[in-house]
């Protein structure tokens, strides 16, 4: 395994890396708009896009109503889940921590499904329920690992596995109780469905997650220090308690509102931060913007694969991210045991 580069992290370097990854994100969104199950190819998609949303062009509806909002949702999803993984890994000092593996995504899903079954509007009802679900799971994980054992990798992972099993059971329980006609769509959503969003919902989602991105970026340097040890961070002037609470709330809010829109897209928070750490080192002042942009590009790419790979129809994006993420998880687990 190559050792990470150690160029000093300067604002210039953060800017350069961010610009590079922005380009990657834009390219992935262009690709996502250009391809799909319908006949609308790259040229037609470009015409529809430049014609504006009001264009009468046949492809316009597909591009403006389906592909573009979906690609943008995938980008926001990837950004929040990657950043969520990065934050949990730093706070718990555990390279395998990730919203999905910890069960925080599962808790959000339970909250969201409860909201849906109660017939609440997506915003604020379902989102709030989802946030409550995430906080409850987080509280449960922290309580189960109360004290030092929380920071031990295996204890944390085992409690995450149990929280996930419990969440899965509870989700099935809620679904079978409901006898709802929307059962199929909920099941599909559970595996990570990015297809149901319009620009209005997308705007709300961005309004909720963008402040979390900013808050986490401002706390990037304290995150570096806290990785060296809480006592050392405190002695370097970091208000450890306030930073921890701020990061936990921002990450949970961001992950839960994302999950309430797109369901369970697993392992993104594991794959993206580890990949970026290998490329750019472990400094969070660089990793936070890199996770937002690179994570976005990653999920846009996975969703594109999920749409174009099947002969008929499509599969949830979560299938692709899990197929990439689960083997990586096992690789990381093995490597960290050596």
């Amino acid at each position, binding site marked *: 395994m190559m050792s990470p580069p150690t160029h000093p992290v300067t604002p210039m370097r953060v800017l350069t890396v961010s610009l590079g990854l922005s380009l990657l994100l834009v390219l992935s969104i262009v690709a996502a708009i250009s391809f799909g199950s319908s006949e609308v190819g790259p040229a037609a998609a470009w015409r529809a896009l430049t014609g504006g949303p009001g264009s009468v062009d046949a492809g316009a509806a597909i591009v403006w109503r389906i592909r573009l909002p979906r690609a943008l949702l995938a980008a926001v999803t990837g950004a929040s889940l990657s950043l969520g993984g990065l934050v949990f890994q730093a706070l718990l000092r555990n390279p395998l921590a990730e919203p999905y593996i910890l069960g925080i995504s599962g808790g959000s899903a339970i909250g969201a499904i409860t909201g849906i079954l109660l017939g609440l509007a997506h915003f604020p009802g379902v989102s709030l329920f989802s946030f409550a679900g995430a906080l409850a799971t987080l509280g449960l994980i922290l309580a189960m690992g109360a004290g030092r054992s929380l920071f031990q990798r295996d204890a944390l992972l085992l409690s995450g596995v149990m929280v996930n099993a419990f969440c899965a059971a509870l989700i099935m329980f809620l679904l079978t109780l409901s006898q709802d006609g929307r059962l199929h769509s909920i099941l599909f959503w559970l595996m990570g469905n990015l297809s149901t969003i319009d620009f209005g919902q997308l705007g709300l989602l961005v309004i909720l997650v963008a402040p979390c991105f900013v808050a986490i970026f401002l706390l990037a*340097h304290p995150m570096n220090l806290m990785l060296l040890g809480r*006592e050392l961070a405190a002695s370097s*002037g*970091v208000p450890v308690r306030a930073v921890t609470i701020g990061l936990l709330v921002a990450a949970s809010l961001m992950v839960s509102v994302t999950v309430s829109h797109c369901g369970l897209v697993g392992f993104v928070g594991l794959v993206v931060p580890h990949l970026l750490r290998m490329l750019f*080192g*472990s400094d969070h002042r660089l990793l936070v913007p890199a996770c937002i942009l690179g994570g976005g590009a990653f999920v846009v790419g996975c969703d594109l694969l999920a749409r174009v790979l099947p002969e008929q129809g499509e599969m949830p994006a979560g299938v692709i991210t899990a197929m990439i993420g689960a083997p990586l998880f096992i690789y990381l687990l093995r490597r960290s045991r050596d």
Partner: protein
Amino acid sequence: MSLQAVWFAYGRQTVIEDLSLDIAEGDFFAVIGPNGSGKTTLLRLILGSLTPRAGDITVFGRPLAGYSRRELARRIALVPQGSVPVFSYAVEEIVRMGRAPHLGLLGFEAAEDLDEASRAIAAVGLQALARRPLDQLSGGEQQRVWIARALCQQPRLMLLDEPTAALDMGHQLQIMRLLARLRRERKMTVVMVSHDLNLAAMFATRMLLIHGGRAVCSGTPKEVLRPTHIRTAYGCEVLVDRHPQGDFPRLTLPVDPTDDGGNLV
């Protein structure tokens, strides 16, 4: 800095009891005592990460509680009992983190911060390893990285938690000489918690012996390291004589011929 009649307890368990202490600027001060005697708690009280239940702590002429976290971090730096972070950081990245209390909102270093970090790396002699990941360094080198990180904070007081634990004899001596040199060159006060009484006797200007949270004795190594004091604190006999090269005590463990005398028989 000084402590006046300081008490501290974790829950109902009193850990520091009526402790008073004066450390003059420029001292090389060693806090010694058996396991669980309250040494690390004392360190945390000086660091401000624990607040005494009673008593006053004064640092550089002002009450400790009157400092903001950042103000304190610009005056007091900690060298922890080294551990390797879960993610790989290069030596210079870790040392630069010492600039934290001097940085702005976004936490980016200016040119003078990077210069200060280079000076700290040079001061501990790690220039050649600056770009290497910490986890590829030996124990002694890692300890020097943590010292450089603390130096980079430009403190007037450096606190060290057992800086020579887990090091071999050669590296122990190297670290202690480094600390003595840095103290002289930077006119810094050094306070260290130590288990190694002989090393402490060689380098410390003054020391405090604590037992059960109470001060047994404080003063110069000659005043503190006496058989009666050691017996009170550690519950064992020692032979104390003069180091052959200097006017400071040397401790030797005696053998008991009536018990298993080890290599005596």
